[in-house]
């Protein structure tokens, strides 16, 4: 229960932001918070709160898994730090690079290969797999 108190501000923010399928559980001194949102800003805000409560994520007592990736069939924005996003032939960094999507470019999500990789199509017709963490619902 102590961890729920420590991260109360985060849990309250997730609840008021309308995070879908929000789950908050405590097990073996780790708090697990899972959910999804269609708004990348909501996810960033929750991570900012996490970073304020536990600076640099040092305590190792929270696993925050907020999925803000774009739904299949919708548009997604490439949210890399600043660089281009590699588009690959298959789902894996060991797969050949077949193109690049620019930082902040809008692409279409065709399908999700697994929890980590999505098949996308760019507006100029390039198709391939990208790391889902770098896509945010547009």
């Amino acid at each position, binding site marked *: 229960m102590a961890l729920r108190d420590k991260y109360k501000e985060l849990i309250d923010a997730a609840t008021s932001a309308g995070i879908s399928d929000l789950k908050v559980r405590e097990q073996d001194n780790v708090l697990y918070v899972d959910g999804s949102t269609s708004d990348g800003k909501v*996810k960033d805000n929750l991570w900012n709160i996490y970073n304020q409560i536990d600076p640099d994520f040092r305590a190792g007592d929270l696993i925050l898994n907020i999925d803000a990736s774009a739904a299949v069939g919708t548009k997604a924005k490439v949210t890399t730090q600043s660089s281009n996003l590699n588009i690959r032939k298959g789902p894996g960094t060991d797969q050949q690079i077949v193109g690049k999507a620019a930082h902040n470019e809008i692409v279409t999500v065709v399908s999700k290969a697994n929890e980590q990789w999505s098949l996308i199509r760019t507006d100029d017709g390039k198709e391939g797999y990208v790391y889902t963490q770098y896509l945010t619902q547009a």
Partner: protein
Amino acid sequence: MKKNFFAGYFLALGMLALIIGSCKGKSSQTTTTDTATVAPADNTTTKIPDTTVVISADDSLKRMIPDATKDFPGVTASVDQGVITLTGNISRDRLPKLMMALNALHPKKINNNLTINK
């Protein structure tokens, strides 16, 4: 003689009534027992709250981590019993992106032992 016959006749009728009565008792008892057996079965269908924490197996974490850490060349991630331990160097502005990617892999815990450069 006739008196005895009637006495026997009524005695037989009485016994028959008793037998029928006891049979009725048995049948109603059986019905009650059946109902009692059904009731607990209904209780077992009560929904169990979803409180399970899904933790990825080490094999799965080891397979997924290279993709998650590829863009963070100074970072080394090791896995033991679901716990990811991070060592190496990272800049503070890049740390959240790395943590977001690793938190999504369903680890048990993440020990951040990274040296953070401003």
